[in-house]
């Protein structure tokens, strides 16, 4: 039984839900079945968001099982850790952006933000692998639009070669699903992410 379980985690406004729909749509176009389960809080902006993406020939439940995520794709490191600790499978990959979106709890001194180093150690303790890239900077400085950060991460995800979907299908679905004016920036962002992980 082959299936791929992916969680795309981030903060409301970063585009994790769009990214998850792009992956699922591409999977269906490549003849697979797909489920996307979303979990998010009440806030439009700034809340913790996680999209569970399940791809395979016979997936039915919308949520990934405990220890069941082959990949946690994190648009924000703390959200990556939040989901990895519960869902990352042994040998799974946390592919994370390094740019932090500091929670208000930390800003007002009620909590501490974990360092990248402690996140890396935590993932190793969970018998997982971690790849961290500064997708926010790549989006802002090289793709020319900070809002393409989710596409940088999507490109990186595809670059790992762990998705059962063709690169061309994914690119096509990206093109169809981003605002028309941002297609070029998003395709640049996709390549940037793809190449970073391929290296």
């Amino acid at each position, binding site marked *: 039984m082959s299936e791929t379980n992916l969680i795309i985690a981030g903060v409301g406004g970063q585009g994790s839900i769009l990214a998850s729909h792009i992956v699922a749509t591409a999977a269906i176009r490549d003849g697979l079945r797909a489920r996307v389960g979303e979990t998010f809080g009440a806030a439009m902006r700034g809340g913790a968001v996680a999209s569970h993406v399940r791809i395979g020939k016979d997936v039915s439940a919308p949520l990934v099982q405990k220890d069941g995520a082959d990949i946690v794709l994190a648009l924000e490191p703390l959200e990556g850790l939040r989901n990895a600790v519960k869902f990352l499978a042994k040998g799974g990959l946390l592919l994370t952006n390094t740019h932090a979106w500091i929670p208000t*709890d930390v800003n007002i*001194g009620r909590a501490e933000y*974990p360092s990248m180093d402690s996140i890396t150690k935590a993932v190793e303790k969970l018998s997982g692998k971690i790849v961290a890239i500064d997708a926010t900077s790549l989006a802002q400085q090289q793709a020319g639009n900070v809002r393409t950060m989710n596409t940088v991460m999507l490109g990186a995800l595809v670059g790992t070669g762990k998705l059962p979907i063709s690169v061309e299908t994914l690119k096509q679905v990206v093109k169809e699903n981003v605002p028309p004016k941002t297609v070029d920036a998003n395709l640049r962002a996709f390549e940037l992410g793809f190449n970073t992980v391929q290296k």
Partner: protein
Amino acid sequence: MDIAEDSPGKRVLLMGNEAIARGAIEGGVKVAASYPGTPASEIMETLAGVAQKLGFHAEWSTNEKVAFEVAAGGALTGVRALTSMKNAGLNWVMDMFMTLVYGGVRGGFVIVVGDDPDAHYSSNEQDTRFAAFYGEIPCLEPADQQEAKDMTRYAFELSEQLELPVFVRSITRICHASGDVELGAIQKLDRKPVFDKHWKIPYRWNVYGPPGPVEKHRWLHGQLPIAKKVVETLPWNKLELRGKPKIGIIASGIGASYAREALRKLKLDGKVAFLKIGTPTPLPEKMVTRLLKAVKTVLVVEEGDPLVELQTKALAKDVNCDVEIVGKLSGAMAPVGEINTDIVTSAIAKVAGIKLTEDKARELARAEISKLVAPRSSTLCPGCQHLGSYWALKQALRKVGANVPIVNGDIGCYEQGGYGIAGKVIKPSTSTGSVRYSIDSPYETLDTNYIMGGGVGLMQGEFHAGYKDGPIVAVAGDSTFFHACIPAVISAVYNKAKGLFLVMDNSWTAMTGHQPNPTTGVTATGEPAKVLRVEDVAKACGVEFIKTVDPFDLKATTAAIEEALKYDGFAIVVTRRLCTLQAQRQKKFVGKRMVVDQSKCTSCKLCVSLGCPAVTFKNNKGGVDPLLCNGCALCAQVCPTGALRAE
């Protein structure tokens, strides 16, 4: 994708709410009405987006009860109608719901409710399948997005066959999840609306008209046996019984999706009897009976309360089966929160006597790592005008020397004024008197919060009880004001209640994803509409103190609230500014560039207590995250030293 695309057989990714909307479109809906409520809002958003193109009516009504009546009215004229709402919305509807069923409908009438087990976006976990049971109408419960579409489409047919409304019970994990769905053909009905007041039953649409409510109840009850026969034939009720298994699973709705994956995980696929349920009420009793007679133990898997389990237990007694039935009543699964594949796996394993091994070292590591995971409390958006309203309220309460104010909350984005901050530990109090607590952030402002429109009613009871330890305040948003507050405002004036009612008007129903309402100026389908103003309605209701201010002007807002708190009567302050996210979308608000001069910062943290997520505090100095800041300049107004200022 275009949800109105007539391409049967095409497989697409649809969110559950889109799938339900597509089912209504395929079923030829003519009248659709709703009020926004997570997790069900996108049903109407999707319908409204194509209503004009397909030639049907779609609207955001002022509340769920009105929406229900609008749709029901359509169905009385023989066209197909749908109303959708969240779990709590149904509570508003119950009056009409319990009575409409006595005469039923002529055109198909589908009631879709999005329940919210685990209360992700709701103030309770109520299981509305009981309402269908209570109202004696059939309930369809989808296991995935494909069924959500297919059931909604079929619900119109069933409704017309039984001449009764049909209930479709969805949940967050269906509504807000997406799956691959094969589209069906779109029916074009073009029915002419007709009216016949004695259609099949005298005074059919007038519950008091002879033969009166009791005879109409008798008619309603007489439809149940027909419904029971129908559900035995539906494709969504399916019994898989091979050989002589000891264990049977009855799984309703999404419970079937979880149970199937759990069985695969436990390698019990095909080794237990499996009854998938798509109609939790009425149950396919013949199928349930066959299962009960075939096995020794039955595990009932369902999301919400044990409706199927209760009926199965009753049925087992009726058919005299010696079978053990376990589920939420027996404690096999928790009666609160939501279920998932992991929970169902444990429950099945226990029934089957399979020991699941736990990796203790991994659990220990997990517990250790969890301590690193900082909470991310839900907050208002960067530059949200409610931040200004709450800041001003706090200052005004301080200025009038409020000892223990009571601030009654309500439902909307501003309800986050009562979410607290996750990192702050609160111990329960055993005090016998009023207790004053500090408000360190806007998220600690609200003292009560229950339901739409609840706060402005509660404040009156607190006043009439004679509460004197501090000012009494209620807050509500614009959409909530029109949804549920107007009768309470009239009652306050009529019964001489005193206190401040703060209406935070951002001219959109924002929390549910930005739907228009009577204050917005557009309809659900994007047509221009009359703009209704809170202060005009309040004036007509007899309120004598009404002030309208801009919450981005902290000085003016604080002054208005202070004056209202000192007023000896029922006062309304409207803080009005277009929702910040809308302003950004419409490019109506171009913020100021914030200048940060940390040498002037005295680390007083007033900027932090504003509660804006764009305000940072690093190395003991206040600052602004340029990626999040929208330049509202509220923090600059709060900063006493000019360390933060607007250019």
